[in-house]
């Protein structure tokens, strides 16, 4: 699959870029003469005509190299355009990890390409710092050897340092291929394209050149790096039948609830013989059942703030949101809980609750498509239908609290009796650009208003905590668990 791109090299005329496979009644020829061919023909003819007219053999001698060189170069003319494909290492790639890609150029014809000019586009979030022609054996053009990043791994020792902001000029003999290896680092999570790549080949000593051939792009998935996160506090309310959390209900589990008199149905291995001998009556050790819980991670995608600098730079709101969501999700899924995700935005994407490693991988994949989507209407009802949100679930809301609708949403959730924890994802030190002397004053007022909103949310029972990695939620989770354990008015 190909799509149009600017030519790999500047062309003299306004030649349209051909699209491979595009329907058309009369496809343009793939190989066109260059200005050098016209010059060679002109000079040869002119010198010979002058030589004949003036009767001078020296002018014929001057014409000999031009005629000989042109005839020798055009003894075999290429008829097939080069093939180009972009490949990338598709293994599990995390922010800050090495990224590898290959732009493969094939010469399926019988004429050598004197030079092949390769240009490729790469996402700015993939920093390609080493690029160059593969030093190993080139792959066969038609299925002989797979062209890909995997096949050329280890052949990048001689790659020159340099980014992809320059075109590369390679040689490609007939019936073989050349690979342009790309090595670098993934700077940020997301789906980042390598390509499209444009190729223009030149043959016959520069007398003919093919029209630019453009390949499709290859997307590389870069998963967010999960910041370390541990929450030791219990869940406010366990909901499932099995899991890693102690519940308040008696049952088979590991947490000791007390010792009681043996009753029908008690298992013999639960008998506490020491107490039974002392009391002269059979007693069993009662335990609390282990339950799992549902954790809903709610991602506020209404607003973005701050400038993302990748894994080594500053984090924007979206960066913090995605990385924190990945860390929290990994933690609770590792403990055996069910985790679901929701986007608070116009698209209201949702990931169904599930547990296990498979859910963790699905969660990471889901996070790659998180985008900021601004909307004018209130997406509350669309996101929080009664069928979507369990009343026993722990809601962790990752929000920058920039949009007033976010605070309203938190207040409504708390009022509906759900267990809500808000994680403040607004980066420290972020501020608007200075446009007037009043910018700082206005920004200060906005910060005060935001602090006021956070205070009001706390009064409504919504703890707001800034994301700080491990242990970020311990304090607030303890408060939420205590609130959940307290008797409620109107509850049975």
């Amino acid at each position, binding site marked *: 699959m190909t799509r149009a791109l600017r030519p790999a090299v*500047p062309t003299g005329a306004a030649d349209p870029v051909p699209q491979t496979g595009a329907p058309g009644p009369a496809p343009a020829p793939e190989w066109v003469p260059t200005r050098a061919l016209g010059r060679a023909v002109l000079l040869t*003819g002119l010198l010979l005509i002058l030589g004949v007219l003036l009767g001078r053999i020296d002018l014929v*001698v001057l014409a000999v190299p031009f005629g000989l060189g042109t005839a020798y170069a055009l003894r075999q003319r290429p008829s097939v355009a080069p093939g180009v494909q972009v490949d990338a290492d598709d293994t599990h790639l995390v922010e800050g990890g090495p990224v590898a890609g290959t732009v493969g150029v094939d010469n399926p014809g019988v004429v050598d390409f004197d030079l092949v000019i390769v240009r490729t586009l790469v996402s700015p979030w993939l920093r390609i710092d080493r690029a160059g022609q593969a030093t190993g054996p080139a792959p066969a053009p038609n299925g002989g050897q797979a062209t890909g990043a995997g096949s050329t791994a280890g052949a990048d020792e001689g790659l020159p340092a340099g980014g992809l902001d320059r075109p590369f000029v390679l040689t490609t003999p007939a019936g073989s291929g050349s690979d342009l290896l790309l090595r670098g680092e993934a700077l940020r999570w997301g789906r980042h394209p390598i390509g499209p790549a444009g190729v223009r080949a030149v043959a016959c000593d520069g007398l003919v050149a093919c029209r630019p051939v453009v390949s499709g792009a290859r997307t590389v998935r870069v998963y967010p790096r999960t910041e370390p996160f541990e929450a030791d506090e219990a869940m406010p309310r366990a909901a499932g039948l099995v899991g890693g959390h102690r519940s308040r209900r008696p049952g088979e589990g590991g947490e000791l609830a007390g010792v009681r008199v043996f009753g029908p149905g008690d298992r013999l291995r639960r008998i506490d013989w020491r107490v039974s001998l002392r009391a002269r009556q059979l007693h069993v050790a009662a335990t609390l059942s282990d339950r799992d819980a549902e954790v809903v991670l709610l991602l506020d995608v209404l607003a973005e703030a701050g400038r993302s600098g990748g894994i080594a730079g500053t984090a924007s709101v979206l960066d913090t949101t995605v990385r924190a969501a990945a860390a929290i999700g990994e933690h609770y899924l590792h403990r055996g809980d069910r985790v679901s995700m929701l986007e608070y935005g116009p698209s209201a994407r949702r990931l169904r609750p599930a547990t296990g490693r498979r859910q963790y991988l699905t969660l990471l994949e889901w996070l790659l498509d998180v985008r900021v989507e601004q909307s004018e209407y209130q997406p509350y009802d669309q996101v929080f239908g009664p069928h979507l949100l369990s009343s026993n679930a722990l809601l962790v809301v990752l929000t920058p609290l920039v949009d007033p609708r976010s605070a309203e949403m938190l207040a409504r959730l708390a009022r509906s009796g759900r267990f809500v924890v808000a994680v403040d994802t607004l980066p420290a030190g972020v501020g608007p650009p200075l446009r007037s002397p009043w910018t700082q004053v206005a920004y200060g007022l906005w910060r005060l208003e935001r602090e006021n909103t956070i205070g009001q949310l706390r009064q409504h029972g919504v703890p707001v905590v800034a994301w700080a990695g491990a242990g970020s939620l311990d304090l607030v989770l303890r408060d939420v668990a205590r609130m959940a354990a307290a008797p409620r008015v109107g509850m049975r």
Partner: protein
Amino acid sequence: MISAINDRIRTVSVAVARITLIPLLVRVGVFATALTSFVLAYPTRILFDRPGLLLLIAAILSAVAPRRRWPTVAVLVAVAGWLLSTSWYGEPVALWRLLGLATLLYLTHTLAALAALLPHDAVVSPDVPTRWLLRALGVSLAGAVLSVLLMSFTASDADRAGLVSALVGLGVAVLVATLLGWLFRRR
């Protein structure tokens, strides 16, 4: 107007800052071969006079703008100088000078073709200019051998030179016509 000039200056400065070694060397080669061909073609008195400056400018332009008509102009100027030198100024046709001029003119042409194809900021594999130069030198060598044979064949008789010129010119004219026909079909 001023902003357009500033943009142009900025574009040129960026292009100069980004130029890489091999495209630069190829353009230096175009300049050197064009200038040397002028030295071989023109009489000394012209070279060191005011027209010498124009020749220098022609050599520079062919190296700076190889995608335009300047390389063709440079070759034609050299041929004109050769005709001027051997006809007007009556300088003898020395074989070494003629072969040198033919070789340099062809090198100017083929290096200009390479320079026109290479983006100025490209990272170029060293194989590309090496193979290109080897092919050009091979063609020049074969052309020199052919030229020596041609010159030795016509050296004894001046009439034979005219006859050979006519025959060779006729043959190559047919070849050029065939080539032009192929070009038009390709277009």
